[in-house]
């Protein structure tokens, strides 16, 4: 008997099947937001009588009231100016012990980045969106300074890179399965130059 060619399978409904799957995935999945600002909370410490005295000039007080208005060091301020103000405060280096600081070395502002503390206080009714904006700007100030130092010290290893500190962190992330002690040491070094001292008081009750 003569060999008959197999009849061709009709692929016309392939599109329908694909659409069905597509719609299923559209409905059951979401595009996840998987980024954020990482912060550490202070551990709860047993009540202590001898309070640590922090000099007024080493404190940078940021207040956010219930109407989402910003008060920085007793002056009203816009959010867009906050980053620069925080950078100037952290980078001041008033006592001269910080040889990498490029600030004004103002006697009335912070002694050195290690002593400088940013204290943020907010009201219970402050909106969370605004609160995150302020947090973001304060973290940005630290990141700016850390990046500046990273660029100065290690920029030669990352030619053409503008954001050296982030490049280092990204590299660390990439090497998470093989420890790179040198890189970790460098990152620690930079973190130590501008330690993140961002304290949050509990909100005022009223």
């Amino acid at each position, binding site marked *: 008997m003569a060999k008959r060619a197999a009849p061709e399978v009709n*692929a*016309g409904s*392939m*599109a329908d*099947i*694909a*659409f069905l*799957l*597509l719609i299923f*995935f*559209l409905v*059951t*999945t*979401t*595009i*996840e*937001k*998987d*980024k*954020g*600002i*990482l*912060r*550490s*909370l*202070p*551990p*709860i410490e047993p009540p202590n009588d001898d309070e640590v005295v922090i000099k007024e000039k080493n404190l940078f007080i940021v207040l*956010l009231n219930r109407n989402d208005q910003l008060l920085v060091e007793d002056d009203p301020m*816009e*959010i*867009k100016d906050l980053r620069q103000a925080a950078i100037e405060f952290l980078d001041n280096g008033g006592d001269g012990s910080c040889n990498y600081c490029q600030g004004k070395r103002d006697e009335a502002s912070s002694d050195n980045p290690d002593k400088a503390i940013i204290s943020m206080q*907010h*009201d*219970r*009714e*402050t*909106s*969370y*969106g*605004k*609160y*995150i*904006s302020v*947090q*973001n*700007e304060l*973290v*940005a100030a630290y*990141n700016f300074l850390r990046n500046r130092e990273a660029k100065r010290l290690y920029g030669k290893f990352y030619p053409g890179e503008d954001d050296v500190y982030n490049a280092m*962190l990204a590299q660390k*992330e990439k090497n998470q399965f093989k420890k790179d002690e040198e890189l970790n040491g460098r990152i620690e070094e930079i973190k130590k130059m501008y330690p993140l001292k961002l304290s*949050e008081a*509990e*909100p005022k009750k009223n």
Partner: protein
Amino acid sequence: MSKFKNKKKGELPAISTASLPDIVFMLLFFFMVATVMRDNTLLIKNSLPNANQVEKLKKDRTTFIYIGEPADRFNGKYGTEARVQINDKFSSLEGIGLAVQEYVTGLNEEFKDKFVVALKVDKEANAGLVSDVKQELRKANALKIMYVTGEGEVEE
């Protein structure tokens, strides 16, 4: 007769739909790769604020706490005051510590000391409630937290 034939000649040929499945499959694969399955049904409104100093979240060691105003369909039952949601249900502030402990118990040994609690908070919520939650987390000794945000310019 020839009249009909002429008409037939002038007609446009049908557009081939043979590549339609390919296009749809392409879309399908895009969505399969770019999205993840929903693992929590949100009972609350949850539009996150934007920030630009963000780090990546490590999903293998993170548990989520959602905060926001109850969704419209629950307004009759739960009102419009912002609430805390953990794992598909509303939780009281006291329940947070327990939920965190539960999560840590089920966690891989290597992550036990570096787990992160991610806070997904609606931008309209009050910061006071967030600090209450943070206070509970401190009590539960869950000290690494992440404010999950969108990526973009901050709101003024």
